[in-house]
């Protein structure tokens, strides 16, 4: 498990990192915690000529309040996000997802931005940020641009981030007072989810006023179950009503088939998990 040789730089500013990436061209890889990249390098599935380690860029770490949203620095570790008071107050769905993400070692090394930029369809953060309508700030040679979550994920392990660009922060709208739940289905705890469902729900009395639902590992990218969201609005937070709404969770999904289950099984599980996630988020 020895990677092929590569050059390594660890800049301390975003500008220096962008400069290093520009110099490295398409053979450069960004190291943002390394929980996915290092195994890839060690198994020689990829052999970049340059690795740009963002681990020393302090400005990319931390969570700040930005009015109607919170802003999470790309290099904030999962563990830091999990413990952050702003996240716990305004974005409980992230807390629920990170609580079940991989194992403690990964949560202490892996980063919020790194995981999202890696864009594994079975990653635990894609569905929550998609459901919450986050926006992504991407820095490049020509300055920064922002991209909506709906447009960020392009395909398998692919996002809108171009060569030479860096994800710097993720802006998550405040979901203060919403209930949230991440329902994850695995055979062993350290496994990638077979299917998972992220749900955030705002209830008024016993009624679901608004709901957001994201699906993990039900296609080449994380997916948002908009038809479920629409069907839930105005419904009572009861098993019966939510069950009916959750039936459409499989619409437009293209889940994979592998040793853990075929696509049809995943579709079925997604409807069950959607119901459970929504009911749990609604406190029902």
């Amino acid at each position, binding site marked *: 498990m020895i990677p092929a040789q590569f050059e390594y730089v660890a800049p301390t500013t975003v500008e220096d990192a962008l400069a290093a990436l520009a110099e490295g061209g398409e053979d450069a890889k960004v190291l943002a915690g390394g929980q996915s990249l290092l195994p890839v390098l060690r198994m020689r599935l990829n052999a970049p000529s340059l690795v740009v380690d963002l681990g020393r860029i302090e400005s990319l770490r931390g969570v700040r309040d930005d009015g109607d949203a919170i802003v999470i620095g790309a290099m904030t570790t999962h563990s830091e996000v999990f413990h952050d008071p702003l996240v716990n107050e305004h974005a409980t769905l992230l807390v629920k997802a990170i609580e079940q993400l991989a194992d403690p070692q990964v949560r202490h090394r892996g980063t919020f931005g790194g995981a999202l930029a890696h864009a594994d369809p079975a990653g635990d953060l894609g569905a929550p940020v998609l459901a919450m309508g986050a926006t992504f700030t991407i820095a490049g040679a020509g300055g920064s641009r922002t991209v909506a979550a709906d447009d960020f994920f392009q395909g398998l392990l692919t996002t809108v981030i171009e060569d030479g660009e860096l994800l710097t922060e993720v802006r998550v709208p405040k979901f203060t007072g919403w209930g949230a739940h991440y329902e994850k*289905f695995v055979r*062993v705890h350290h496994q990638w989810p077979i299917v998972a469902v992220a749900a955030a729900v705002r209830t008024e009395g016993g009624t679901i006023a608004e709901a957001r639902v994201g699906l993990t590992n039900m296609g080449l990218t994380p997916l948002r179950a908009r038809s479920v969201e629409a069907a839930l609005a105005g419904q009572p937070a009861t098993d019966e009503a939510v069950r009916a709404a959750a039936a459409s969770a499989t619409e*437009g999904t293209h889940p994979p*088939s592998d040793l853990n289950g075929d696509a049809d099984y995943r579709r079925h599980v997604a409807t069950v998990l959607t119901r459970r996630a929504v009911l749990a988020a609604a406190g029902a």
Partner: protein
Amino acid sequence: MTVTDEVSTGSTGGPREVGSARRRKEDQRLITGRTKWTDNIQLPGMLHIAMVRSPFAHARITHIDTSAAKSAPNVVTVLTGQEVSEEQGVLANAWPITPDQVAPVHPPIAVDRVTFAGEVVAVVVARSAAEARDAAELVDVDYDELPAALDLKEAAEDKVLAHPDLGTNKSALWVFDSAEAGTGGAVDEAIDKARTDGIVLEREYRQQRLIPAFMEPRSVVVDPTGEQITMWSATQIPHILRYLLAATTGVSESKIRVIAPDVGGGFGGKLQSTPEEWITFLAARRTGRPVKYTETRSESLMAAHHGRDQWQRLTLAATKDGTVTGLKVDLLADLGSYVSLVGGGVPVLGAFMFNAIYKFPAYQFKVQTVLTNKAWTDAYRGAGRPEATFAIERLMDELAHELGVDPLEIREKNWIKHEEFPFTTVAGLEYDTGNYEQATAEAKRIFGYDELRAEQQRRREANDPVQLGIGVSTFTEMCGLAPSRVLGQLSYGAGGWEHASVRMLPTGKVEVITGASAHGQGHETAWSQIVADRLGVAFEDVEVLHGDTQISHKGLDTYGSRSLVVGGEALVKAADKVIEKARPIAAHLLEASVDDLEFKDGSFGVRGTDKGIAMADLAAAAFTGHNLPDGVEPTLDSDATYDPVNFSYPHGTHLCAVEIDTETGGLTMRKYTAVDDVGTIVNPLIVEGQLHGGLVQGIAQALFEEAVYDDSGTLVSASFVDYLVPTAADTISFDLGTSVTPSTTNSLGTKGVGEAGTIASTPAVVNAVVDALRPFGVSDVRMPCTPERIWKAIHTGGGTEPTEKDAMPHFDENDVADRTDGASA
């Protein structure tokens, strides 16, 4: 109990070490890793190996171009099978189970043909591991791909040949028949009779292929400098390894020293002589330099031997009241592409165990071993006996279901009663002791069996989406390998004895040398406890040495739950010889008759007086030799080689409760109770540890683990992403109990414990899964019982499909998700 209390304390009456939950001496260094793992060894000028392995399951090697690799930085040499075919030796099969067994020659480096994906085709030796790895990428191998024999059943029909030159995939057919052996009746008669007036159950079960997945990957260092070539290897079998190196390479055995330093687990996976060991030995001799090879986890999963992999066709005959009358077992066993060290014999180790604890009057066992183009199989924790136990314990549940009675009731009706021991079984083994009634009663009590059955009934009646299943496994096994005479009858290539030495140091401290080779079991602690009791010395004053053929020159190593029952008995005998050697010296110094001496608490005393002399003083007296009786040699050091008279038969009752989420097929283990009879317990902490680990490994077979090949012969479950080894997070707290009937075949009264948990737990779990699903008409779920299989069993009557169809992860569509409706990105 009273008998054992007397013998197991030996001649001392002081505080007992045996039975005390001593913390393990070896744990600090093993757990922190600050110890001599093979890969930690650094020698001056040491070279490093990287292997080039075949990506194909079956292919002819048409050309290998090593020129680019040879000219890469710091590469010392690149070896191919062609270049070294005369000197590389071969890997031995030590257990030809039949005289006409078909076995291909197994070269360490493939010479002209590769026979499984992962086989070594070239070897790069360089000054650093990184440079060796880089250069390995530059070796250019041309292959001419051949059809691969992959499916076990198809391979048994010789449709595609794994080794075309052999003309068949069928390696050996091994048969035991109780009528022929004179140990019982004719099974076909019993089955015919049951077809007319009784019950006949015919079932087919799959033992999926597993990977031992020991914690420390295999590693080997060979230093050719000095008079002896020294090999350090992460092996379970340093003594056997030394013998085999000498036997197959032409190097004199006296010129080879093998050291198994601290070894991080094996589970049978390191009971092997490996291509990697032979290659490193060769590379060191060729270069004249120390050479190291440490495998990656990917290599380990792909190319270290696998385990299990059987199809089991079973026919059980019984009378209408559920009394068993016959059992017929017909196995296909997948050897993989070579007949490995004891691989062919693994199913034979199960041959005597399908009848288990039950009084079958007629029994027949057949196994056809089959060559395929997959990684070779060999011992994996339990080796043959988990397969047997699974089959019979699943069948007994089926019989109970057929009769509509409780699965424990049908077992009790058929098992050997405690007053019937010693009992000679239909397979010809004599079970010395056991008490199935007692273990079962205790297990039911701890488990809360009746309450859980009542809860199960309530959930069934209420159509609860979460159903409860209760699984039973009343297992026994044969371990303590093995009486040499029996091994000889089975054509095994070695004996089954074990050796021990006790050295009395001048300061009164004790060195114990054992031929068993611990790789995590805790021998250092348990052996110290035994010697402390036997010789009356302090636990801390005993040092246990093992695993180095220069120190422990004689031994047959560790596997088959043999170390304590065989090696421990050798140790007891060696310690008793020390006492007997000390006796005349003590009598001389005490000016007493030997007949008046008694040995107690580490001292000889003269009966009726307060005169005495301690063992430490006698060690000093022997050391100085100043004042010994005439003709007595000046040493107390003693050794013993012990050949067991019988196997050892631990048993137990395991009860498992699982909750099945019928909406998803998800499974949650609710409760697991194991009451095991492992005879006299030397160290309860070690026994609990062995059981915990063993249980998890057996549960993993039931629920999580499977080595899966795709239809081109590539191992899909080739990393821990897909080969699901459970962790502590995936287990529950087990409720353990004990029921002790000391073995009568060794003086401590011990039985084996290393494999018990693994053997017992798999059927307990699968029986629980099937029990939960009975209301849905389900009678089997194939292992591993994944949520998908469980769900399909409930909703579509499936659950028994093979895993291969989904072997290659894939998406149904090449496109990203439809963005226009429903879920969208």
